[in-house]
């Protein structure tokens, strides 16, 4: 088959914060970079991030990167890699300053410096008073960042492939990744992008769960591509449930609401977080707050006619603070609930939000894979942002650390790619026929439904998947429900082979795109439930009712899931920091 090939120095898959930050670095260095995105870049899900980005600027409270590091390690429930965390926290202030110079309209303090608000899990002096570390543009920080990064990229003349869906990575016999096959959504044309270096920056997989805070595009495409290329996914059992999604609907209500002084109440009007986290209260880590809400509801103290949510109260903040600092969530609340938070509390429930796991990388955003005695880097292959696992979030991410993660590691990837290209100036040879199996996978969706066979549709299966993930792999888990989840997801995967679509058009065929997305989601779902079933302890966001405690002797290690035979292996946590002493595991109290 004749298929157009385009050659670039670097292929960036995904145009959210991580992809755009890396692309900017590269375009400015005159590297030929192709950014491939299934949506127009400013529609990437970074746009929906609200509360802000952590950096120890110390504009509001005294602060240091070292305290930020301590909080992040503790927040990760000691599963984060401390070298990567030190790198991120040290890089944070400069990274924010760069963004400001790019034009991000941060909110301001009286002295003209960047406004910072308190967020969960932040402390001064290694567990002391609450810190205010989250740099914010009102409650639209992700939007402000993404648009500024896109704008800088058009200034730098980055080459974009907008509305192209990346199908699969291409590799040679040695296993080197040499680019990808991409699919033009508008015309169905397939194109090979040959690249010396490839960065996967495709975001998370929140669509695994029925109720989630994520966009419909968050289907973990890059993670699934990595799996199909034989790479592992790390720590997939750790999925973050955000404490304050709009109950029953899922829209995100930023942690910034609690940062600005809002708090949660149960049906007795009790500020119940005081019982669970006497010191940090409503600004404990997200896993802690989500569990507390789930327990309140389970024990019958939920609000509403079915006692199935709690209230987030912020009417005491006054209309000025709400209009100035939280205008976006006020809009959301009025649009979807008909509630003006200036007068009334918002019903909330822990909602699927963030994929802590992902493609394993080191602190340079290089993808790493296990070998006989340790691990090695994949030459020329990088991953950054939510699809990657550096691992800076470990078992639980702190609010405000994801916007930080994407720009710090997008930038790190850009820097390392420049270095790599210096010593690897030529494209490696793409083997003949390398695209065949991928093209087959695409064409498979042109098969027609046979008349006598029971029809299975893509939306049906997606529903089933989201349902089982939500019911069996939520805030609290047990052996029994996870075993059931593994069986169900496996059967969904089998049924997917028999699923058919009814739209065979080559023009903007969204049914076919959704089929590709479901293929990706199912593999990631399997990675998640299999990793979760195996981990017999409770750590961070992974709470096993049958193994209630953290078990540092047996389980202070990263999971690695491989698609082939559903193999699970493990690797040690990198506890050694770059320059400072290790923070050893301690009991985690807030």
């Amino acid at each position, binding site marked *: 088959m004749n298929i157009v090939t385009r050659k670039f120095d670097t292929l960036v898959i995904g145009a959210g914060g991580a992809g755009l930050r890396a692309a900017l670095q590269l375009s400015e260095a005159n590297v030929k970079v192709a950014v491939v995105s299934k949506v*127009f870049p400013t529609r990437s*899900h970074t746009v929906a991030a609200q509360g802000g980005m952590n950096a120890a600027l110390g504009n509001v409270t005294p602060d240091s990167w070292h305290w930020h590091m301590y909080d992040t390690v503790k927040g990760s429930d000691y599963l984060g890699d401390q070298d990567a965390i030190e790198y991120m926290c040290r890089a944070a202030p400069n990274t924010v300053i760069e963004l*400001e110079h790019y034009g991000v309209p941060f909110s301001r303090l009286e002295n*003209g410096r960047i406004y910072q608000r308190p967020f969960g899990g932040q402390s001064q002096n290694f567990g002391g008073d609450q810190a205010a570390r989250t740099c914010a543009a009102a409650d639209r920080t992700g939007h402000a960042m993404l648009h500024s990064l896109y704008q800088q990229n058009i200034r730098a003349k980055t080459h974009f492939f907008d509305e192209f869906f990346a199908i699969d990575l291409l590799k040679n016999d040695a296993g080197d990744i040499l680019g990808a096959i991409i699919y033009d959504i508008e015309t169905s044309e397939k194109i090979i992008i040959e690249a010396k270096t490839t960065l996967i920056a495709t975001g998370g997989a929140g669509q695994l769960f029925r109720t989630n805070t994520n966009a419909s595009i968050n289907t973990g495409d890059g993670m699934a591509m990595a799996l199909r290329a034989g790479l592992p996914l790390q720590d997939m059992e750790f999925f973050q449930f955000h404490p304050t999604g709009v109950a029953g609907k899922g829209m995100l209500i930023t942690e910034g609401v609690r940062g600005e002084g809002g708090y949660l109440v149960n049906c007795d009007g009790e500020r119940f977080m005081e019982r669970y986290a006497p010191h940090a209260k409503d600004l404990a880590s997200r896993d802690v707050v989500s569990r507390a809400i789930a327990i309140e509801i389970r024990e019958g103290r939920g609000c509403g006619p079915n006692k199935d949510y709690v209230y987030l109260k912020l009417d005491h903040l006054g209309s000025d603070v709400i209009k100035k600092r939280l205008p976006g969530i006020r809009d959301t609340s009025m649009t979807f609930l008909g509630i003006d938070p200036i007068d009334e509390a918002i019903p909330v429930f822990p909602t699927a939000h963030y994929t802590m796991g992902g493609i394993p990388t080191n602190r340079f955003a290089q993808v790493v894979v296990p070998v006989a005695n340790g691990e090695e880097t994949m030459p020329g292959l990088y991953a950054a942002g939510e699809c990657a696992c550096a691992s800076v979030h470990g078992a639980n991410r702190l609010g405000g650390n994801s916007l930080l993660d994407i720009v710090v590691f997008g930038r790190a990837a850009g820097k390392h790619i420049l270095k790599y290209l210096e010593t690897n100036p030529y494209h490696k040879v793409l083997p003949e026929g390398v695209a065949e199996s991928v093209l087959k996978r695409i064409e498979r969706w042109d098969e027609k439904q046979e008349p006598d066979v029971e029809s299975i549709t893509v939306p049906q299966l997606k529903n089933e998947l989201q349902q089982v993930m939500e019911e069996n792999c939520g805030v609290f888990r047990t052996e029994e429900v996870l075993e059931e989840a593994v069986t169900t997801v496996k059967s969904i995967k089998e049924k997917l082979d028999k699923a058919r679509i009814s739209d065979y058009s080559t023009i903007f065929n969204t049914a076919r795109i959704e089929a590709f997305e479901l293929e990706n989601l199912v593999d990631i779902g399997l990675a998640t439930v299999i990793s979760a079933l195996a981990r017999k302890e409770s750590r961070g966001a992974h709470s096993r009712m049958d193994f209630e405690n953290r078990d540092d002797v047996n389980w202070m290690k990263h999971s690695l899931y491989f698609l082939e035979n559903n193999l699970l292996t493990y690797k040690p946590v990198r506890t050694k920091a770059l320059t400072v002493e290790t923070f050893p595991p301690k009991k985690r109290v807030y």
Partner: protein
Amino acid sequence: MRFKIYRFNPETDTAPYTKEYELSDIEPGTMLRDALLRIKNEQDESLSFRHSCGEGVCGSDGMNINGKNGLACVTAVETLKQPIIINPLPGMPVIRDLVIDMTQFYTQYRVAKPWLIVNDPVPEIEFTQTPEQRDKLDGLYECILCGCCSTSCPSFWWNPDKFMGPAALLQSWRFLSDSRDQATDERLEDLEGPYKLFRCHSIMNCVDVCPKQLNPTKAIGEIKKLMLKKML
């Protein structure tokens, strides 16, 4: 609940047509995007439209709803008169069904040079900006590039290649208003001539339809005022 939806697939259709759909058991609070997804998932997989975040921040699902441009994901179906008539955003080439080709719109966005231009040496800390200076960006930076405004503007319909349109001009004013930006003269010079800026006749459709309640007409007026001030 009844829907009349514009359909066109250039591969198979010689001309656009309207297709009717009906949904029952509409839950309270259902947004138009939810309804369209139900139609797609339950009745007609071939219906094509863009959508993503579902909460009005990504700007993907702009469409013409009962004659007015808006975002499907933040439009409650209960508020709409039936049958609900859905068309693609007007004035742009249709790719398929409700999916339009936005190239012209994005090209004009680039014409605005929507990035901060600073000529001074860059400090090691942030450029400082007072809260009052920062307030000037409110109502400007929130644009989500959904295209509802520009595709409701008759001046943009007639001259999409020459008139920048409300969305792009809002960006022009966003950077002209930024105390950190140092390219005021260059930006104003770029906007001279009869088309780029001056094709705006203050019809104000843009203001009427903006799902983020922004006011491009006012921004355009401010640019004109600043130009005048510079000339005097």
